[in-house]
Structures are given as structure tokens and as C-alpha cells.
């Protein structure tokens, strides 16, 4: 009953904007990355030179593996804790459950810069609250930001803290979508809580879990703010991860050629990770 093209005018404006801001820079960036860049302007064509230059950079291996460890641990911890919280909230009454949801979501709605700044204030070396509490408890001088391992642990902790709220809301929505009768029927058949969780809840939560895994992976992998504000990449290079490296190359050392190449490699990595997740989830079914 509608003309075949009647819908187009409604989507064209949105796609014009998406094309201009989200899609075309990818192609332009790739074209740009094939040139040698001097003072922000492309000079001569060097093909994949900017990309091969990355491979021979001795610093990059450490940065990539640090990023992988950071992202994997942050995503895993967030999902496990958020799943436990969502299961708990689902069993609570309506009002208490809603109160818990609201508290859980607060860190997620405040900005990463502000949230991280507040954590830095809690853990800051000389007068931080954490140091005072540790002294009071007789733990001695707790200076988490000074030690490479604990600085990374703190970075992971803040990232988890920040994103749990989002994961809880999505997982809770998934839990609410599971009909109550499934659990009751299984209980009547004598299934234990663990069996119900393993055989009924988890498989039916595949879509929200996949979504949460994708969103968390991408947002952790691409976060500039948390390491920049919390540790500045330090101590030494202990918390220097990929987004900071891209940021520094482009806007601190103005090495736009390798920054563009690195950004595009990261972008490709993002896409491959999403595809891998989708494949993995399908394969499991």
C-alpha cells in the first residue's frame, strides 16, 4: 500500500550525517595513511610504510599486550560481578531491587574523567583517603599508584567500577525476559539452583551477555580517559595502553602518519573482535 520509495526520505538525513562523521573518515584515514606526513599534510606516497613502521617499533609489543590484559581482565570481572548483581536484584522485591539498580548505575552516568579524578583523589600518594585508612588500619603506607602492578590493578578496578551499572541493567533486562515457569518446572523436577543457572538461565541470556561483552570490550579497549587521568600511563609505562599511545602520537608528538596507521589498525581490531564474539556465540548455541 506504500510506494516503494516512500520510506527513503525518512532515513536519508540520518544516513547523510552517519556517512559524513562515522563512515567516510575511515576511508579518508586509510588513504591518508598511505602517505608520508609532514606538518599535518601528506607529502609523498609510501604505500603501507606507516603500517610496516609500526611492526618494527620495539615499544608497541608491550603496549598491545598490556591493552589485551587490561581489557580481558576488566571485561571478565565486570561481567562476573554484574551477573551476580543482576541475579541478586532479580530476586529482590520491586522497591529494594529498584533502589539497588539506581545505586549501581550512578558510576556509569557520571563522566569517566570525573569518576577517575575522584578515584585519583582517594588514592593519591600524599594525602589520599586510602592512605589514611590503611595507616589507621595498621597496613602501613599504601601507595597503589606508585607500584606498576598495583597501578594496573587500580586502573582495572576503576574501569570495572565505572561500567558495572550498564552491564547490570542489560543483564537484568535479559533475566526479566525469561518466563518464571521454566525455573518452577525445573525445580519440580528436582534441579538444583546451580543446574538451573547453568542449563536454563545462562543459555537464555546469550543475547544480553553477547551485547554486554561487545560493549565492554570496545569501551575498555578504546578508553583514553581512565589511564590518562588516573595514572597518565605510569608509573614508567606500566599503564600505557593503546588509546593513550594513539593520542600521544597524534597530538603530543604530532607523528600523524603512524598515529593514523595505529588508529586504523585498532579500528580493524575492534571490528575483528566484534565478529569473533558473534561467531563464538553462534558456535556455542
Amino acid at each position, binding site marked *: 500500500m*506504500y510506494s*516503494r520509495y*516512500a520510506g527513503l526520505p*525518512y*532515513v536519508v538525513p*540520518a*544516513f547523510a*550525517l*552517519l556517512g559524513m562523521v562515522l563512515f*567516510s*573518515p575511515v576511508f*579518508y*584515514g*586509510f588513504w*591518508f595513511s598511505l602517505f608520508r606526513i609532514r606538518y*599535518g599534510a601528506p607529502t609523498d606516497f609510501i604505500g603501507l610504510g606507516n603500517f610496516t613502521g609500526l611492526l618494527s617499533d620495539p615499544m608497541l609489543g608491550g603496549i598491545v599486550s598490556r591493552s589485551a590484559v587490561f581489557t580481558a581482565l576488566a571485561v571478565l570481572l565486570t561481567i562476573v560481578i554484574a551477573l551476580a548483581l543482576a541475579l*541478586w536484584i532479580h*530476586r*529482590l*522485591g*520491586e522497591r*529494594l531491587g529498584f533502589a539497588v539498580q539506581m*545505586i*549501581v548505575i*550512578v558510576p556509569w552516568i*557520571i*563522566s569517566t*574523567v*570525573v569518576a577517575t*579524578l*575522584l*578515584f585519583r*583523589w*582517594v588514592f*593519591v600518594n*600524599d*594525602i589520599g*583517603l586510602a592512605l*589514611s585508612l590503611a*595507616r589507621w588500619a595498621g597496613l602501613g603506607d599504601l601507595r597503589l599508584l606508585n607500584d606498576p602492578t598495583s597501578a594496573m590493578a587500580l586502573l582495572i578496578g576503576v574501569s570495572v*567500577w565505572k561500567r558495572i551499572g550498564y552491564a547490570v*541493567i*542489560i543483564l537484568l533486562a535479559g533475566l*526479566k525476559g525469561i518466563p518464571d515457569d521454566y525455573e518452577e518446572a525445573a525445580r519440580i523436577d528436582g534441579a538444583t539452583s546451580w543446574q538451573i543457572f547453568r542449563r536454563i538461565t545462562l543459555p537464555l541470556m546469550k543475547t544480553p551477555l553477547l*551485547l554486554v561483552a*561487545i*560493549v565492554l570490550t*570496545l*569501551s575498555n579497549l*578504546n*578508553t*583514553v*580517559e581512565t589511564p590518562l587521568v588516573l595514572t597518565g600511563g605510569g608509573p614508567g609505562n606500566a599503564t600505557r595502553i593503546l588509546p593513550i599511545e*594513539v593520542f600521544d602520537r597524534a597530538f603530543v608528538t604530532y607523528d600523524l602518519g603512524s598515529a*593514523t596507521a595505529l*588508529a*586504523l589498525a585498532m*579500528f580493524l581490531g*575492534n571490528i575483528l573482535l*566484534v565478529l569473533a564474539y558473534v561467531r563464538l556465540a553462534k558456535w556455542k548455541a
Partner: protein
Amino acid sequence: MDATRKRRWALPDRWSVLVVLAFALLAVLNLMPLIWGVLTSFKSPPDLFRFPPTLFGFTPTLENYQRVIESGFLGNMRVSLFYSGTTVAATLVLALPAAYAFDRFDFPLRQPLFMLVVASIPLSLGAAALLIPNYLYFSRLGLTNAWYTLPLILTAHQLPMAIWIMKGTIEGIPRELDEAAVADGASHFEVLRFVILPLTKPAFGAAGVLTFVASWNEFVAGSVMVDSPALRPIQPAIYNFIGFFGREWGPLTASATLAILPILIAFALLGRLIVSGLTKGSVKG
């Protein structure tokens, strides 16, 4: 239904102690950094350095706020309000027709285009990786450093999620309603305006709040795409304060408090919408 609700609300005694403890722990973990930051913002330097730190036994002062405001922070807040407001307006105006068309019309390439929208959600999450190409492209077009630079970029980042949320709601509106309106002689646009729009209000609100929170909190694009201090949004301004005020935690926490304020107000008024909007937009898609 009613019986299970009651059962869930009234837990056995030994559990309710645990529930209260878990609730308290969660509240402390999630709210403590915020409360500590807000308290700090009202402390004068002698109270800040007092050991052990005091929660309430100090003389509150507004001097930190005074210093932050004197350094032009209200200008950054005003600019950020402008960016977020225009982004919310543009996102809603572009997303509603697109969502309507994706659900109600069958036009060429409908399916692949919608897949592109869905794929853009993770794409805009990985925006940090795309930022360098985006920056190069925008500076080549001469679109950096203008009042419209950030609204354009932020709208493109928020648009896919908004389209998804609204499509989820429009799916739930019976087609008979628009068909009846068309039979009465209404045009498609009138159907959208007078039938769909009034029934989409909750999704509209949810998408609006989420867009506002995301654009108010945006850091990376804001720090890269515009140079001039007059155009600088609030999050990069706070980051600059870290360099400017150094270890002066009074002004730093004051700026953080001012940045959280609008978000907490929006959250207090519309928190329910955030939760339901995320839920609808994610799991039903």
C-alpha cells in the same frame, strides 16, 4: 504474580541481614568516592591536609568554587549545555523518522541499512580509534573549531542507539492505528506526527536522557576537535584543570562536583526512563 512479589519482598530473617549488608557495602563502594569528592570541594587547605581526614568536623568554604568559576568554568558549562542540548534535539529529530521508516516501510536496501545502524552502535563506541581519521577528515573539510563541530560529531555517535531504542517502541504500536489514520486521509508525515510521536514519548525521553548524559560526558572528541578555550566543553576543561591546579584538590573536586550536578538532576528526575530505555533498546532488538 502477586504472590511471588510478596514472597520476594519478605525474605527470611537470616537473609535480610545479608541483604542489608550487601546493600550497604554497595552503597559505600559506589557513592563514597562521590561523597568524598563533594565534601573535599568545601574544604579549605588546612582542613584538606588534616590527618586523619575529617568527614564533617570542618568549616565549609566556597573559596574552591570561587576559584574554579573565576577561571572561566561557567563558560565551559554553558558551552557544554549548548552542545548537549543541540545534540539531544538533533538526535531525536533525526532518529524518530528513521526508526519509523525502518519499522513501517519497505524500501530498497532497508535490511542492509538497518544492519549498518546496528553495526554503528559498536562503531561509535570504538570512536576513540576513529578519532584521528575523523579529525583529519574534518580539518580537511574545514569543519573543526566551530560551534557546530561537536554537535555534528556527538549526534552521529548517539544516533544509532537512539534509532534502535525508538524502533523497539514503534514495533509495539499496532499498525492498525496508522492504517486507520491513512484511511481517514492522513499523510505518512501526519501519521508520524500525530499517531506515532505521542505514543513514542517514553522512548523519546529515554533516548534523550541517554544522549544528554553521553554528550555531556564526552571527553576525547571535545579535546581534539576544538582548540579555542571559548569552544571547549566541560570534560576537557576539567582535564586541563589537573595541569592548571596541579595538586590543589579543592578546586579540582569543586569542578568535578559542578560537572556531576546536571547529570544527577537529570538522573533524579528521569532515572526510571534511563533504565527502561536501555532495557527496551538492547534486548528486544
